């Protein structure tokens, strides 16, 4: 059974078809890459999967269960975690505090009990901070644990975001451009980290990124979107060399350059 199954998804904004009959799936423990030029509908697809947008047509299934009409926070509770293209963090707190906030659903007490200061809430709070420290350690972020999010550079925040979404205890991880703001070396390392995380947490990962080497390097399967449609899909190598894909990225003539100098 596939973890995520999107069938025939359609969404329109005014006259623009942002997604046009998009179908995709991600199997257990798979890493699925989504590439495509700007405005191809990649983030829109994520917004449909996580529930920020309601598709006008189509079905989204998570482990066989239809989630097309569930609100965002209920999808998170099912185990769908996501990161945002332009960093989704609470900016006016510290990194560690963000990871504690993200453990909202793992917090085992009622908010009212917390407000009254029940003794159990104190021990639970220290458990949450312990877990936050653990995750930060894992992503080599311990040094900035007490830094304010607003003070940190973009590249670091993209990594903080990954730690934060792991704190929500996801099963299916949707990463929106995790490698943006990172150099090619760092992006490669990120790819290895993702493979490690998949092993450690048993994750299924769907990832959007412009770093084509990163996506093709770690993905088991790749979709290429263009103008809201699936242009090509298949094994990373197939998609990368697919003539339509090359054309969508480069125009008519395939060039001899590598992406490394552009990242």
């Amino acid at each position: 059974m596939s973890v995520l199954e999107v069938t025939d998804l359609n969404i329109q904004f005014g006259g623009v078809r942002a997604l046009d009959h998009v179908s995709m799936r991600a199997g257990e423990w798979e890493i699925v890459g989504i590439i495509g030029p700007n405005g191809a509908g990649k983030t829109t697809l994520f917004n449909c999967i996580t529930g920020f947008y309601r598709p006008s047509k189509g079905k989204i299934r998570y482990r066989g269960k239809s989630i097309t009409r569930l609100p965002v926070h209920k999808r998170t509770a099912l185990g769908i975690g996501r990161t945002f293209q332009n960093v989704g963090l609470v900016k006016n707190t510290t990194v560690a505090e963000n990871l504690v906030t993200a453990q909202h659903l793992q917090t085992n007490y009622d908010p009212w009990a917390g407000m009254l200061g029940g003794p159990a809430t104190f021990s639970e709070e220290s458990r949450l901070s312990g877990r936050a420290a653990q995750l930060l350690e894992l992503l080599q972020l311990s040094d900035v644990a007490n830094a304010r999010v607003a003070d940190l550079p973009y590249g670091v925040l993209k990594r903080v975001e990954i730690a934060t979404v792991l704190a929500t205890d996801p099963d299916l991880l949707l990463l929106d451009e995790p490698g943006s703001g990172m150099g090619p070396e760092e992006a490669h390392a990120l790819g290895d980290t993702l493979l490690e995380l998949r092993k450690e947490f048993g994750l299924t990962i769907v990832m959007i990124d412009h770093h084509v080497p990163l996506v093709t390097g770690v993905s088991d399967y790749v979709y290429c979107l263009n103008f809201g449609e699936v242009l090509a899909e298949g094994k990373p190598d197939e998609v990368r060399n697919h003539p339509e894909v090359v054309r969508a990225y480069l125009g008519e003539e395939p060039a001899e350059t590598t992406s490394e100098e552009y990242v």
Partner: protein
Amino acid sequence: MTEPQTAEIPKTESEAESTRELPPVVADQLDDEVAPFRPGVAGWLARGAVWALLAWVVFAIPGNVLSPFHLGVSDVGHASKAAIFAIIGLSLNVLIGYAGTISLGHQAFVGVGGFVSAYVVVDMGLEFWLAVPIAAAVGGLQAALLGAVSLRLTGLYFALVTLAYGVFAEETLFGITAFTGGEGGKNVPRPIGFGDDYSFYYLCLAFLAVVLWADWRLVRTKGGRALQALRENPRVASSYGIDVKAYTLMAFVVSGIFAGIGGALLAQQSTFLVPETFDFELALLFVLMTVVGGLRNRVGVVIGSVIFALLEEGTLVHLLHIDGFLDSTIGLPAEFFGLVVGPFLLLLTLTLYPGGIGQQIAPISHWLRGRKFDLHAGKVTEVEVADVRA
């Protein structure tokens, strides 16, 4: 739109095999490397002395042999009112500060609390100790109703709804004679054992302490964090699994409960309750004292509320013994002092100190908590100017 990336990327399999770790992020500020500041014995003694002084002012205000002030009987009553206003300020802070919404009808919240508690005590003949929780519960309930509206309307439109609710309460709800005594108002006896202004002040302080505790724990736990996340970025909050609507409602209920408690105490404090007290002007005063106090700054909100409570009728001027001075130098009667100071404080908040009084006193409050004295302690503040002006 140009897209410089290419699809033709040579990738060597061996590269992917060798596991490279992300380099650890190293913080460039070495704040933590330097040993954290610890005040010495003299430092602690100095801080302890200031703490003791503050405690003395707060606890001895109603005037006993040790009191720093020479207060008239009416001024003692105003001290209780200041404590009650602090509760109301904290109540409004939950809405404006934590949930990021606004209420221009908070006088109605407080008024309902007051009249409910009066009704419970006078008409139902129940104890004061029951009246407070009932007033709090009713306060929470009405706030939940208004909160349900806020889920559909935001910003200016919701502000208008709260304003309308305040006017509705004043004109209609409080006009129900059976409930409020109508135009004539209602007598509310003080609780037994707290009949005089002195002991009643301590009762108000006790309630303020409870509210402060709840507010502190709220911010430090699940609910408070959820509120902060949804205020700053509702999309991120919901992706964390936070039910944005439910927690917005919770903020309303918490605010309503605090306001209900404040209202119940206010009814007992004035011992005579008339509907006209709860007019729109009062709502503005509540918003003013909260914002000037400093959103999301507990101490600031309390101080702001106390200042505005005492500015009314010139109590602060009496307390500070500057009424004679003011009168002789600039011919300003004590009652009008507030009209000068209030707008001045508001201007300060809107221009230099978006964090309000909380930001202005940051050097002192940080020092009192055992940190180094730093004049710029309040520079980094969560509250931005735009936050307050919005």
